[in-house]
């Protein structure tokens, strides 16, 4: 499993780019937003595949749970 890490790059113009690595699900946004609160205003945001991974996993667990309880899904 990839180690969770945040990479912060500060350009010579003062722009700050925060990349979260190995953090799955919406927690990666919590971490990125922490830095937004520390440093300033958000200019842009890009979500990549790992953001959606935990949600997919959670949905699969939900489907299994529904199968046993007779719920939809």
């Amino acid at each position, binding site marked *: 499993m990839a*180690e*969770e*890490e*945040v*990479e*912060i*790059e*500060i*350009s*010579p*113009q*003062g*722009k*700050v*780019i*925060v*990349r*979260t*690595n*190995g*953090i*799955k699900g919406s927690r*990666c*946004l919590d*971490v*990125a*937003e*922490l*830095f*937004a609160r*520390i*440093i*300033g*205003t*958000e*200019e*842009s*945001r*890009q*979500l*990549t595949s*790992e*953001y959606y991974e935990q949600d997919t996993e959670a949905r699969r667990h939900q489907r299994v749970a529904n199968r046993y309880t007779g719920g939809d899904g």
Partner: protein
Amino acid sequence: MSSVIVLAPLIVGGWPVISAAVTAAIGTMGFSVATAAAAQRRESSVNRAEIEVENSEILASQGGLEQSIVVERGGIRATFSRDARGALKVCMEGESVSKAELQRVGEELLGAVTQQYAYHRIVSELKNRNMVVVDEEVLADRSVKIRVRNF
């Protein structure tokens, strides 16, 4: 990779914080703090350019109303101070230097000041939150890269 967020720093602080960022930044660009005599020298036949940092606020409660820092490099003089609205501004002056060149150097200086402010703000917050900086490097384009764990 999970997310990429681009942030524009908001410079907020008392004069000591701002002047520390200015002092750290000017070294990276070959400027040095002017002597008292040079700082007070006023010449009439120089070009001038004034640039304000929109996303900035120098807190009056922590000094800075009458404060300024004057720095120099090869015929260019830059005076950092607080403007009437409380923002950080730099006044660039130079003899035989075009206004466009003064504007360019001034913007580069303010970029370096913003970078230093952001760096110190981030690093001190990381320490306060017991986050671990595992690596730090200055890239060829003068960007600073910090890698953090334990959050």
